[in-house]
């Protein structure tokens, strides 16, 4: 380790670090403070002597209560959770099988298929929402959760497959060969030997897929229309903003509550997430 002078550590390390952290966290702080600020204080004038823009002295949970009781927010939470869990499960299932096949089996066109699955991840939703809107109208699944459950895998599967394929490649082939010699079938070896070892990779792919579907905006905006069918990201923006009237307190309360599931998932699994990411790309 090279010994550095103290001021250098400050200039190159602590100061930038502080700036970065303050910058990333400030909007969240602003949301929190707006969510617990009473209405009277929210709309107080800039020049008022009692103005305290950066903190509040009378925190209130009124906005949270309004949000749960007066809007369809609880529905949105449930819809989003349902859609995110089901589409993540579908994508993980497909991604596991496809990733294994691409990483371990030799078959004609393996390379081409692998690359083309990866390239589909790069096809942006902006390109796809028009034709998908048409398909969804034809099959009459518009305005139901199935419209999203069937379309989210288009961007979830490619990523899951790519990530898991990389992860499978880091697992030594010998492990599987030993199991085959001991009499396991290819399928048995896959399910009993490879999948359990790949749990960090599977978890991180799952977390990633869950986050993406929880946060997805365009498809949810285009394919759902009734207020109580919406997901949190769309509902918060489209139902709590009516014309020029903004329900600021409720908006911020919704913004905070709507992300709790994602925050929970991350705080539990962040270690797996990083190992999964490094492990996969290393391969």
């Amino acid at each position: 380790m090279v010994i550095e002078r103290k001021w250098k550590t400050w200039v190159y390390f602590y100061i930038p670090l502080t700036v970065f952290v303050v910058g990333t966290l400030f909007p969240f702080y602003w949301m929190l403070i707006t969510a617990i600020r009473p209405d009277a204080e929210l709309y107080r004038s800039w020049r008022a002597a009692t103005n305290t823009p950066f903190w509040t002295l009378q925190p209130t949970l009124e906005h949270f209560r309004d949000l749960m009781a007066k809007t369809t927010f609880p529905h949105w939470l449930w819809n989003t959770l349902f859609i995110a869990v089901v589409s993540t499960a579908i994508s993980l299932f497909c991604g596991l099988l496809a990733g294994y096949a691409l990483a371990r089996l030799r078959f004609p066109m393996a390379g081409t298929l692998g690359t083309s699955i990866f390239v589909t991840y790069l096809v942006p939703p902006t390109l796809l929402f028009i034709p998908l809107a048409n398909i969804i109208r034809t099959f009459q699944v518009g305005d139901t959760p199935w419209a999203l459950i069937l379309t989210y895998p288009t961007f979830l599967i490619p990523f899951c497959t790519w990530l898991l394929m990389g992860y499978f490649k880091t697992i030594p082939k010998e492990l599987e060969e030993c199991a085959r010699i001991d009499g396991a079938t290819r399928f048995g070896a896959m399910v009993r030997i490879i999948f359990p070892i790949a749990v960090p990779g599977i978890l991180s792919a799952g977390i990633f897929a869950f986050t993406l579907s929880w946060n997805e905006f365009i498809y949810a905006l285009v394919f759902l229309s009734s207020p109580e069918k919406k997901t949190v990201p769309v509902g918060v923006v489209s139902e709590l903003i009516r014309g020029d009237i903004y329900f600021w307190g409720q908006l911020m309360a919704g913004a905070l509550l709507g992300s709790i599931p994602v925050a929970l998932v991350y705080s539990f699994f962040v270690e797996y997430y990083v190992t999964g990411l490094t492990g996969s790309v290393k391969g």
Partner: protein
Amino acid sequence: MRVATTARRRDIQVAYLLLAPTLLLLLTALAYPVGWEVWTSLTDLSPLKDGPTAFVGLENYRRFLADPEFWRAATVTVVYAAVTSVAKLSLGVGFALLLARPFRGRALVFLAIFLPWAYPASVSVIGWYWTLNPPIPTAYSVFMGNVKYAVDGVLGGGAWAFLSVTLFNIWRGSSFIGVFLLAGINAVPPELFECAVLESKSAWRRFWLVTVPLLKPFLALAVFLSLTTAFADLANVWMLTAGRIVYPVVGTHAYWLAIRGGQFGPASALSLTLVPFLLAVLLILFRMFDPPEKERA
């Protein structure tokens, strides 16, 4: 020999069996829609129009190329993608380098830096909107209003709105790129960096001669993801302006035409104009860097 060939044939069968669900889903929900879109862009299809749909050839494309509104949207899109990508990449590299060495509280800082990406964009965007474009009766709206007029005065109307979308995109994207590059740094054996410290005293030289080449595949992928998401951005612009688009990008333009205007033909043509941009970026990056999967496969 015979045993080997049957085993191999079984392998091939198993492989296709395992790939079947993925391919089926991707074909129906990706390949078919893209094909449909290409076809529709050549017609005047609209759910609002009576009578049969007519084939109009390249008419939709010609109309856009002659339309100054389209060129404005295209310019905004390109500037937006370039500016945000450069900023995201440099901030992301900064995050990654800071977090690369162990220090007390690193896990917490990591979470703080990761939060902007993990947080649902459409709700964190509200926090930004509230900060940058506060409604009239709020405490600090006079102050932010003055900032807005100053920026718009210098750069032209709508510039402040555009700037806020750019800032938001950078804030959110650099978080992801930082974590992604950190994963890349962690994957490099630490001895390599230690050797570099012995070789050169200049941290700047070490960065360009050691860190950058080692992270090349990660950097390439990060640039690519950042550019494509910015090119095809619709959600960020939409959310931050609550649908009132002052500065249209190609994506929002297409949304208005298709969903609000019911003009599927022109809208399809419009969103397909993104494809040349995307292909160009893809080609340049494949030229400049070896794509990670190929190099490591």
